[in-house]
C-alpha cells in the first residue's frame, strides 16, 4: 500500500519540491528496516524454525533426550498410516466437519435469524447462546464429563428418575464420539450465530422490503434474498468449522482423553497421546507434519475454491 502511494507520488513528481520527493522515495527503507525485523524474527523463531525442526525430527526414532541420532527415514510416516487409531482420528475429524456443516451452521443460522432482529429479549438470548463459546474448552469438557456421568451426573439423574439403567455414554466406544459431537455443537454454535448476526445486520433492509412488496413469503425471502447475501458469511463459518475440527484437543482431553479404545481421538489428541506422552518425539513430529500438510492444503484450497470472491 505504502509503496503504491510512493510510486504515484514519484510518478507525477514534477510539481513536487525536490527535497520532498527524495525523502519520500527513500522513506520506505528506514521503515522496512525498522519494522520488519522484529516481526520477521518472531515469525522465524516461533513458527518457521519449530516447523523445520519438527520436519527434521520426523525422520528419527527419538525419545526427546539428547540429539536425535537414529535415522529411520520415512518409517514414522508409514507407522502413522498403518495405525488404526490415526485412521479413527481422521474419521472423527471428518465427522466433526460434517456435523458442523449439517447441524451446527443451520442451527446457528436459524437462531441468528431469530435474535438478529430488534425484538424484546433478543439481546438477552444472544448473550445466553453466546455464553458456551466464552467458556474455556477445558472447563466445558469437565462440565460435560460431569453431565454425562452415569453415577452422579445429570444424565444419570434423569435415568434414575425414570427408573432406567443409567447410560455411560463416554465409556461406550460406539457412542462416545456422538456425545462429544453434542458438546462441540453446544460449545461453538454461539460463535457461528454471532457471525451470522453480523452478516444479517449488514444486509440492506430495502432489499428485503422490496421482496415484501413483491409479495414474497417469509421462507422465500430467506431462501432467495437472505441466504445468497449471507453467502460469504456461510463460507467463512464453514472455514472456521473445518479449522476448529483440525484443532480440537482441549475439550476432548477432559471428556474422554481419546478413549475408550481410541474411539474419540482427533489428529491432535492422537499426536499428544502417541507422540508426547509416549516420548516418541520423532513419531509425534511426523504426526505434526501430516497435520500441518492437512491444514495448509485444506486452508489454501478452501480459500481458493470457495472464498475466491469474498
Amino acid at each position, binding site marked *: 500500500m505504502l509503496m503504491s502511494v510512493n510510486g504515484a507520488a514519484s510518478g507525477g513528481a514534477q510539481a513536487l519540491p525536490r527535497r520532498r520527493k527524495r525523502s519520500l522515495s527513500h522513506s520506505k527503507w528506514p521503515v522496512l528496516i525498522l519494522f520488519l525485523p522484529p516481526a520477521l524474527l518472531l515469525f522465524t523463531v516461533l513458527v518457521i524454525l519449530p516447523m523445520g525442526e519438527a520436519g527434521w525430527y520426523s525422520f528419527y526414532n527419538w525419545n526427546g*533426550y*539428547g540429539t536425535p541420532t537414529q535415522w529411520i527415514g520415512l518409517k514414522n510416516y508409514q507407522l502413522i498410516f498403518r495405525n488404526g487409531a490415526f485412521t479413527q482420528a481422521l474419521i472423527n475429524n471428518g465427522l466433526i466437519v460434517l456435523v458442523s456443516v449439517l447441524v451446527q451452521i443451520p442451527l446457528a443460522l436459524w437462531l441468528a435469524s431469530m435474535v438478529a432482529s430488534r425484538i424484546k429479549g433478543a439481546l438477552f438470548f444472544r448473550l445466553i447462546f453466546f455464553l458456551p463459546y466464552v467458556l474455556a474448552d477445558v472447563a466445558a469438557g469437565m462440565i460435560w464429563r460431569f453431565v454425562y456421568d452415569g453415577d452422579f451426573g445429570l444424565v444419570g439423574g434423569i435415568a434414575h428418575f425414570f427408573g432406567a439403567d443409567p447410560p455411560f455414554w463416554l*465409556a*461406550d466406544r460406539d457412542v462416545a464420539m456422538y456425545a462429544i459431537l453434542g458438546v462441540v455443537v453446544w460449545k461453538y454454535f454461539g460463535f457461528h450465530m454471532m457471525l451470522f448476526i453480523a452478516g444479517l445486520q449488514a444486509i440492506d433492509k430495502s432489499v428485503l422490503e422490496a421482496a415484501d412488496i413483491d409479495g414474497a413469503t417469509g421462507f422465500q425471502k430467506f431462501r432467495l434474498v437472505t441466504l445468497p447475501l449471507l453467502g460469504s458469511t456461510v463460507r467463512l463459518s464453514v472455514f472456521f468449522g473445518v479449522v476448529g475440527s483440525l484443532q480440537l484437543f482441549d475439550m476432548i482431553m477432559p471428556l474422554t482423553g481419546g*478413549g*475408550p*479404545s481410541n474411539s474419540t481421538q482427533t489428529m491432535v489428541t492422537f499426536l499428544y497421546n502417541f507422540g508426547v*506422552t509416549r*516420548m*516418541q518425539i520423532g513419531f509425534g513430529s511426523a504426526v505434526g507434519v501430516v497435520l500441518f500438510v492437512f491444514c495448509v492444503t485444506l486452508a489454501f484450497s478452501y480459500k481458493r475454491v470457495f472464498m475466491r470472491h469474498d
Partner: protein
Amino acid sequence: MSIRISKSFSASVAALALIGGFLSAGTAAADSVIRWMHVEQVPTTIALWTQIAKDFESKHPGVKIELQFLENQAFKAKMPTLLQSNDAPAMFYTWGGGVLQAQSVTGALRSIDPALDSNGGEWRKSLNPSAVEGLSFDGKVWAAPFRTGVVDFYYNKDLFKKAGVDASKIATWDDLLGAVKTLKQAGITPIAGGGRDKWPLHFYWSYLAMREAGQKGFEDAKAGENDGFNAKPFIKAGEDLTALGKLEPFQNGYLGATWNDALAAFGDGRAAMILSFENTPATQATNSTSRKGLPDETIGRFPFPVVQGGAGVATDNLGGLNGWAVTKNAPPETEEFLRYLASLDIQKQLAKDTQIMPVVKGASEAVSRPLLKEVATSLSKETWHQNFLDQDLGPNVGAVVNDVSTEIVSGGVNPADAAQQIEDAYSLERK
C-alpha cells in the same frame, strides 16, 4: 544531542545490568538452591516435606530448598525438555524403569554412587538392597530410593460377607473368577476398575504375566529369548484376563472411569474389590463421596492369586519403587539432603505420617496401620519385586501394555494379537 543522551543512557543501563549481574552472582554463591520437583498432591504430605526441608535448611545455612509441583501427566510430558534446559530442577521424582534409564543415558543425570559410598558406604548399607538395585542401570545408581510398594487386592469385608465369599480361600485365578461370579449373583459389583486411565487395568495383565511366566520367563522375554513377549505364558496371561473380562466384573461405565473414580466406587462400597496400591486405605477414603470411605476394619487384603501351572508364586510382587533423581548441575548439597531424607528417623516419620513403605532398613516398624503392616511384611518376604510395566518397559511399550490390557478386558483384542503388539513394540527397544 539525542545520540549523546542515548549513549549515556545505554551506558548506564549496561552498568546497571552489570551490577545486577554481580549482585545475582553474589547471592547465587552464598546460597545453594535445591529445587525439588515432585508430583505429590496430598496436602499433609507436602506439609511434612516442607517441614523436613526447613529443618535441613536450618542445619545447613546457605542452602535453600524450593518445592516445585507438577501434575503427574504434565510432569512426564515436560521432563524431556526441562532436563535439557538450564531450568532443570536439582532433584525430581522418578518411578525408575525405562524412563530413568533413558534419562541416565543422555548425561542429564548424576549418579549418586559417590554419595552412597562415602563414609565407608554408610548410606548404601542403610538401604534395602533391592531398592538400590531397582534404581541402578549400567552398574550405577541413578536415583536415591525413597519409597516402595505393592499392588494387592483390597476387598470390602461387608460385601464379601453378604455374598458369602471367603477371601482367605482365594488362592488361584480360578478361585478369583469363582468369587467374581458369586458376587455378581448376589447383585454386587465385584471389582472397581479405572479403564479410562488404562494403567489401573495393566496391573491385571502384568500380574498374570508374572504368575504365568515367573521371574525367569519374564527376564527371558525382556532379553528377547523364546519369542520374547510373544511366548506362550504371555498369551496365556491374556487368555486368563479375557476370562475375567467375559464375566463383566467391573462397575458400569468403567471404561470412562478414572483411577479416582475407581477408588471412589470402592470407598463408597459400590464395588467389592480393587486391585490397588498399598496406600488404598487412605486414598479410598479421600476419593469417596463422603470423604470418609470405608473404615480400616472393613477392608481386607489378599495377594494376587496364582495361576495353575504357572511358574510364578504368590510372593512375587508387582509394585512401585520410587526415588529422587539428581540432575547433572544440581548443587552438591542435593545428595546431602537426599541422605537426610533417607535417614532412619525421617523415613520412620514419613512411614508413620504419610503411609509410605520405607526403603531404609528398620524403618518399616514405624508403619502402624495394621493393613499397612501386612504390606510391610509381604515386602519383607517377597521373592521378586517387579516394577510397574508401564515404567519398567519404558513409556512407549508401557503405553502399549496399558492399551492392550484395557482392550483385552473389554474384549477389543484377542490374547495372541495383544502379545504380538507388546512384542512388536518392545523389539524396537532391545539393544
